[in-house]
């Protein structure tokens, strides 16, 4: 466990400031115009250096923690917990975020509503920072969902295109579905441990893992992580999310948001990790995703989709590495995470630049851009070399470490190693394919005449590519201050690692060599191999996840519509029937189980006038049911009501009695008024319906009786009336207890009741007026 020195620091300030910036962004954009990107990037850049400064402390094994009460009674707080893992993510988010903002400042020029775009993007950034800095599971969940929502807004930014809208909806549905599973998992964790604070959970690993709910928790948390990180079989939303603007793809859908799932896995690894289920689940899904992503990347023709599928492959690799769950594999995962964010963020931005300058992202149309776009070409080659895992770039270190981790795995190692190598071979082929196809070879046939992009479009990718090189050559700062603390956080023990570019001649280097050679082999024979894959896909891959998912959603909508039409058919009789039947079934079930008849129940002697009153009420009720005249029925109902009022009066509830009399009288008047407008009384219903209604009525009335009897002998708690009796005058300053309860002790309830009355009045008003408006229109 890392040395937990707890500092008091304003960790949340950058996040709060960036949230604020999100809402100011539209105004800044309007004032600053084309300089907006630079101005907006200042705060994230500043935050980056702030957190970088903290990395010195974190490097010494310090964790910083602070907490603000939110709903303390439920253990929900705004806690912030900064350790190596959160720091790593914070640095990635703020640095890439700042660069993407500079890039977007130029890229988004001329699009409608681009002021809003900045707002969403910065809002996302702040949410993502909150997510990785959260020290409380619930606040983490809140930020988690905020990233889903901002991702929805950003994917659907070109909202006039139907495919953008459907892609946005798809991504939202999948990630939010996973988010709900995650919440359930967190609640279960809380049920076992009694806390949501990560800092307290770290010591409760055994309690969670020995609990019978462990497997459920694991499934739920993995569902959250896998949907967010586009793992098989939820991977399909990520390629579709490329419908969003390119800065979004670079920031959310390669470098940060899709890594939230990985972050989550690493964060909960000390709690849930280490078991067979954890290892099996993660490695299986990881391997499938890794291989499928790399395979599909090769057959795509849209540059952004190629990158999206390689992202899926990389995410699969990360899940796999977390699942192998050794010190080496976590080290490889952390390094590869950095590697991937650097080269993929860079490549996405470059893809956007190319799209902007040539008017197409189709690999078949692009070609020979090195002559017209030399800087872009240079930067892209650096990033692609890193992606292919060639020295002297950091991608090489990443790949070496992955191989090293896989070689060291006992048991299934060979299988993991071979599929991993196969995926890497495909990655090399894809890199070579892009590099050659886009930048060299014969000149492409593009809609626009390509020209070099301005400084602002290649600054961001350039910095990231440069980092790919610099961090590989001088890895010690990265290793000591960022990677080691991060690994320590994931492994929950103090670990110091060294990173070297050159490992000497060994097995791993040989594997790397074989990988590159095979990759180049595929690249050389791409003209036969890729069409073969495409053909094979056409035959084999009939089942498309995205289509199946949308069909599922459509069918679900049809089902709910049918269900709603059945239960809420728009006829009041049916509504009442449904409510009565459902309620009485549930209550009768409970009454049967617990009993409602107290055997020792003794009937007290009632005064003769009470007996008479009850008899009159029974007679009036019967008359209401059997009479053929509406007026008679209404007046008999009134008699019942008055009878109840008198009973209240007999037993001393004067307020109730007065209210009842008033209400009863007014209701009778009201009914008479309504009846006046109704057509002549006739029997429309068949005998069967009436029998059915009678049965429902008797069942419903029966359970009310049962409940009343039960309430009479069931005294679970001491009666509260004594409290009111004693405190009404002293606390409520009134001698009329009923009224004091109404307006003081339980004023909130009264408020709700009055509100219901107002809503009912508005309902009556609109029902009656609607008819008038309709008839007036008809005239």
């Amino acid at each position, binding site marked *: 466990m890392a040395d937990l020195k707890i500092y008091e620091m304003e960790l949340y300030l950058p996040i709060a400031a960036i949230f604020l910036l999100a809402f100011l962004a539209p105004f800044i954009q309007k004032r600053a115009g084309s300089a907006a990107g630079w101005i907006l990037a200042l705060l994230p850049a500043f935050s980056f250096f702030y957190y970088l400064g903290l990395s010195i402390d974190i490097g010494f094994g310090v964790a910083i923690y602070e907490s603000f009460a939110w709903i303390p009674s439920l253990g929900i707080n705004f806690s912030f917990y900064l350790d190596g893992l959160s720091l790593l993510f914070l640095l990635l988010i703020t640095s890439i975020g700042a660069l993407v903002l500079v890039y977007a400042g130029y890229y988004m020029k001329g699009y409608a509503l681009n002021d809003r775009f900045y707002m969403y993007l910065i809002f996302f950034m702040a949410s993502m920072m909150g997510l990785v800095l959260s020290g409380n599971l619930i606040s983490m969940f809140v930020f988690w969902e905020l990233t889903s929502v901002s991702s929805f807004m950003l994917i659907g930014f070109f909202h006039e295109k139907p495919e953008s809208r459907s892609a946005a909806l798809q991504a939202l549905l999948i990630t939010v579905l996973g988010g709900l599973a995650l919440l359930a998992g967190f609640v279960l964790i809380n049920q076992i441990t009694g806390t949501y604070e990560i800092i307290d959970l770290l010591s409760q690993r055994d309690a969670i893992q020995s609990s019978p709910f462990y497997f459920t928790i694991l499934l739920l948390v993995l569902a959250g992580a896998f949907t967010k990180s586009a793992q098989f079989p939820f991977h399909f939303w990520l390629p579709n999310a490329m419908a969003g603007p390119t800065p979004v793809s670079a920031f959310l859908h390669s470098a940060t948001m899709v890594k939230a799932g990985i972050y989550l896995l690493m964060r909960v690894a000390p709690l849930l990790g280490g078991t067979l289920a954890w290892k099996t689940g993660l490695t299986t899904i990881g391997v499938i995703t890794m291989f499928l992503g790399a395979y599909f990347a090769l057959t795509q023709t849209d540059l952004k989709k190629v990158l999206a599928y390689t992202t899926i492959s990389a995410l699969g690799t990360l899940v796999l590495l977390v699942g192998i769950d050794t010190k080496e594999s976590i080290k490889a995962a952390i390094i590869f995470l950095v590697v991937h964010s650097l080269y993929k963020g860079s490549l996405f931005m470059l893809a956007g630049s190319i799209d902007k300058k040539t008017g197409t992202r189709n690999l078949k149309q692009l070609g020979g851009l090195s002559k017209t776009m030399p800087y872009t070409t240079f930067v892209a080659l650096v990033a692609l070399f890193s992606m292919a895992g060639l020295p002297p770039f950091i991608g090489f270190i990443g790949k070496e470490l992955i191989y090293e981790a896989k070689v060291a795995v006992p048991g299934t190692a060979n299988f993991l190693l071979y599929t991993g190598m196969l995926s890497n071979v495909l990655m090399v082929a894809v890199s070579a394919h892009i590099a050659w196809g886009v930048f060299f070879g014969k000149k492409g046939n593009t809609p626009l005449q390509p020209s070099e992009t301005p400084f602002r479009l290649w600054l961001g990718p350039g910095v990231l590519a440069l980092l790919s090189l610099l961090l590989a050559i001088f890895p010690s700062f990265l290793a000591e201050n960022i990677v080691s603390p991060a690994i320590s956080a994931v492994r929950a023990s103090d670990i110091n690692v060294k990173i070297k570019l050159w490992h000497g001649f060994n097995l791993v280097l040989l594997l790397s060599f074989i990988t590159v050679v095979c990759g180049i082999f595929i690249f050389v024979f791409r003209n036969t191999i890729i069409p073969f894959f495409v053909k094979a896909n056409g035959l084999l891959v009939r089942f498309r996840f995205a289509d199946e998912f949308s069909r599922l959603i459509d069918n679900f909508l049809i089902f709910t519509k049918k269900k709603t039409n059945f239960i809420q058919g728009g006829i009041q009789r049916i509504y009442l029937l449904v409510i009565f039947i459902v309620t009485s079934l549930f209550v009768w079930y409970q009454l049967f189980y617990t009993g409602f008849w107290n055997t020792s129940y003794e009937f007290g002697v009632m005064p003769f006038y009470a007996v008479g009153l009850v008899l009159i009420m029974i007679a009036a009720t019967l008359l209401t049911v059997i009479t053929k005249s509406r007026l008679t029925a209404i007046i008999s109902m009134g008699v019942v009501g008055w009878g109840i009022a008198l009973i209240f009066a007999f037993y001393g509830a*004067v*307020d109730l009695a*007065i*209210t009842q009399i*008033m*209400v009863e*009288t*007014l209701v009778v*008047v*009201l009914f008479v*008024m*309504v009846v006046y*407008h109704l057509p002549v009384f006739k029997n429309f219903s068949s005998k069967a319906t009436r029998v059915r209604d009678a049965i429902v009525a008797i069942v419903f009335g029966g359970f009310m009786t049962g409940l009343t009897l039960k309430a009479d002998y069931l005294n679970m708690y001491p009666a509260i009336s004594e409290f009111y009796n004693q405190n009404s005058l002293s*606390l*409520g*300053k*009134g*001698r*009329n207890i*009923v*009224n*004091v309860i*109404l*307006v*003081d002790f339980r*004023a*909130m309830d*009264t*408020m709700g009741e*009055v*509100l219901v*009355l*107002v809503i*009912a*009045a*508005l309902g*009556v*008003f609109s*029902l*009656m*007026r609607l*008819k*008038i408006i309709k008839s007036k229109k008809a005239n």
Partner: protein
Amino acid sequence: MNSKIIQIAARFIKPMFLLISLLVLYRGHNLPGGGFIGGLLAAAGYIFYMMAYGVKSTIKKMWIKPFRLMAMGLLLAFISGFFALFANAPYMAGQWISVFGVKLGTPTLFDLGVYFAVVGVLLTIMMSILDKQEKWD
């Protein structure tokens, strides 16, 4: 209804009901009564008048129309809870001050809100049902 007897009776009954309703509202804190019952009584007076003279002329004579009454009552009840916040107490906790020996408290205000809301609700329902053709404001 065009019965002269009812019309003349209504002229006397309406103010009487209003007076009684205010009395009931006032004494509600210590004796049977309160905002709800008071509101019902006041509404009953108006409804009687409505039946005798029709909706339009009744509404015309009201200073505050039923819709406004309803909203006003709800607002009063809602606002009365906020005084507690200034005294650093939870929302709706009763606060009391003494003016010339008369104890005034937020529950009184709340009760008044309930009174207005109930009158408004009943009159709105009543006029919706009684009057289906005329346009009233």
